[in-house]
């Protein structure tokens, strides 16, 4: 793939990529993400190339309750929302940032390289965006007329889970890891079905 920029293993593109005349149509919405830094010269990257954000130059701060993202020496976004590109297969890397209007700001390959304060704000923001309780213990499980009732302990506290039609509401993330969507649309993760009680394991295996 010689034509691909940012090839495999290549260095992350500098945040302040060489300026080109890029189409405005897909650029950031100036209203929602007013450039704070160099105010009168909005810097836009080429909108069809992924913009790799350099974690060393990223500052994520909570200002006025909002997470403000600053690329040092470039610009700021008053409200930046992080999103995991691979929330299931690689949740801790590839964090993308969207601005207040939902436009793509850029992506961080490994947020662990950011400064401590930024990591903390990122943690908070991700905790807000992703609420997927992981089931740690099943205290009761039964299946009745095709509806499954679970009483469970999760990483987010105890909960009753009711799943109708498990077959359609079960997502296999790997051979042992499954995601279950309950009757109201809440999602629960079973990190290792082999650690479950025999009853629950039986119920899940029947639908795999």
């Amino acid at each position, binding site marked *: 793939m010689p034509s*691909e920029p940012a090839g495999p293993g290549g260095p992350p593109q500098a945040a302040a990529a060489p300026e080109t005349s890029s189409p405005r149509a897909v650029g950031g919405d100036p209203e929602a993400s007013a450039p704070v830094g160099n105010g009168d010269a909005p810097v836009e990257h080429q909108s069809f190339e992924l913009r790799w954000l350099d974690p060393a130059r990223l500052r994520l701060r909570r200002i006025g309750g909002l997470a403000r993202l600053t690329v040092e020496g470039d610009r700021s976004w008053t409200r930046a929302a992080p999103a*995991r590109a691979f929330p299931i297969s*690689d949740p801790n890397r590839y964090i993308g940032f969207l601005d207040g209007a939902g436009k793509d700001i850029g992506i961080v390959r490994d947020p662990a390289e950011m400064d401590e304060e930024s990591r903390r704000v990122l943690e908070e923001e991700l905790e807000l965006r992703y609420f997927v309780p992981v089931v740690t213990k099943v205290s009761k499980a039964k299946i009745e007329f095709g509806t499954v009732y679970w009483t469970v302990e999760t990483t987010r506290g105890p909960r009753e889970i009711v799943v109708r039609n498990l077959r359609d509401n079960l997502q296999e993330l790997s051979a042992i890891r499954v995601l279950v969507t309950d009757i109201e649309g809440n999602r629960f993760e079973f990190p290792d079905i082999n650690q479950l009680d025999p009853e629950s394991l039986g119920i899940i295996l029947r639908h795999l």
Partner: protein
Amino acid sequence: MPLLEELPAPVAEALEATSADLHGEAPDPTPLDTADAASDSPRQIIFETDISDGAFGKEWLVVRSGYVYVFGADGSGPAPTRHALPLSKIRSARAEMYVGNGAIEVMTDEKMIPLVRYSFAAAAEAGAVARQINGLASGEQLKLDKIEPKKRLCPGCGRVLPDNSDVCRACIDARAVLLRLFRFLKPYKLQAAISVAVIFVTASLELVPPWIGGRIVDTIVESLKSRSLQMSTVLYFVAIFAASRLGLSGAGYVQRRIHAWLGARVLMDIRVRVFEQLSVLSLGYYDKRNTASVMSRITNDADHLWDFLTDGIPWFMSTLLAIVGTSIVLFKMNAQLAAVLLAPGIFVFFLNRWFRPRARRRWQQLWHRISKMYAALGTTLAGIRVVKAFAQEDRERSRFRERNFGVFQASYEANALWASYWPVLGFIMASGYLILWTFGGYKALHGVITVGTLTAFSGYLMRFYTPFQEFSRVLDWSTRSLTAAERVFEVLDTQPDIRQPDEARQPEEWQGAVEFEKVGFSYDGAKRVLDDFSLTVTPGEMIGLVGHSGAGKTTIINLLCRFYDVIDGAIRVDGIDLRELDMAGYRHRLGIVPQEPFLFPGTVKDNIAYARHEAKVEDVMQAAKAANCHEFILKFPDGYDTQVGERGQRLSGGERQRISIARAILHDPLILILDEATASVDTETEQQIQQAIQRLIAHRTTFAIAHRLSTLRNADRLVVMKEGKMTELGTHDELMAADGVYAGLVKVQTEVNQIRAI
């Protein structure tokens, strides 16, 4: 077959006479004025029609030596000449379809002449003939392709073949099919051998209990006679009885397990083989069949085979062994008695043969009526608003009652037949006991047989009759299974039309130059969808294909992908004919963004990386970004891990299309095909897709089909197609200046857009 190779004798005579008149004494040496003697194209057309003078009858239309002749059939002697028209006089010809028949009509300068009429049986050929006359009249070469008949007959017996298959149920060579089926067992010889052995053991062990019963009775009777108790002998027989029962249970256990394993295993092998073959077959195979019928080869047909292998064959073997074994034992004990007892068995067999087809007819009637009732129910409920709005509830109620009554009647009749069958069958089978007790009792009283033998006989009797009852069922069953087997083998035996050449070539350097040279193609042989198409495309050029549907745009794409092979001419990529090109290598350099983006069940990431599984996630994201889909994917709860396809996240048409473009970007093809990539999206999405496409086509040879001409404004050249031919070629500006078909299309679309804007 309406198109003949040879002239029928009376026509040949008439033709000779007529053409001698026309050409003077010396017949014209060239059979067809326009035919190239060196080419292998046909030199004449002989079309035999089936309507003459408004009734069924033969007439012949012959095209040769620059003339179109029509001859009638007139009993004996030379056929009367109806028409003899020089091709030079013909301006146009066409096959006009009327109701129940059609006519080939030609226009001369003066008038329209109806040449021949024909029924639907010859319609496809008549169309081809008319087109050929048209072509010949304008100085083209004769090209007659093979036409696939609608009514396909079995070459063996002349019966009509089923749709979607060439397997004739009447002509199945049962032995060959069975032998081939057994070949699937070859890898599992040991299991198959054990299975056969177990069936033998079971069949023999089953003979033991009634015999033991007889022996025990005899022992008791003798003990009573000799007044000496022989309990030990009785116990001895009881022990044998117990052992045989135990053996039977054990054998049954082994048999069931082995068959379950063997059957499922062989079924798996057959399915894998069929699927592998299906994936190899060219698109031409799928054109002639619908997906459901191809699927049923893997599902239904393979299931029939499974039934046959796991239940049918073992059951057949054990039934056969039961009849043979029981007969041997009975005849050995007393041949006379056994022979007499055979009579009801044979009767049972024939009763069954008589009964089964009659019962089946009634059941079929019942199913038919049930489906009619469901149909009435379905339409009424689906149209309940209309029913209520027009206050037709009463009518719908009475209609439903009527249909329901039909179901009741059919159901009663079918079950009533069963009701009379079982008692008759029961009585016949019981009559065996009548014979046994009368005839056998007489013999026992006269000391010809022992009481024990009589007891044994009664024990064997039902075992003896049951197979007769079931035998005709097996016959039905095996016919069905063998047909299924044959259909499966048909798939396995089909040779793909498109094959990797024996000596595949690769260009020294892939550049992406494409050359069409006088390409001609037809899907069915009847209609040329592409004719004399020539175009040279330089690497990196973008070609826009424009034209109405059916103009041949998609055909060009299909041929370029080598889904089909050209009939005339050649397509060359980097100087090498497609038919000689290494197919895998070529298709790795070919990318398609289809009109209907197809997403496979799996994650978004897997779908983008479909053609390059090994691609790094960063490359996947980069491709997604270039295709304008990174942003919306990031907003999905599961990001790139989102499940799409069946049961997955619902994506909009534009999102699917952009993922499909990302797939093509990641694939990084040298030659790119955009087939109506923006057909079904709104204008804003189209713009986003347009941007994505712009990034995609850079440095690639691109062929783009689009109905929205604005999509093609970046094309280097536009090809305007009409009825399989290229009518215009040039840049947008050139074509607008020429004010031809393209300019007209642009004008129409601009007006439509203005209306939309209002």
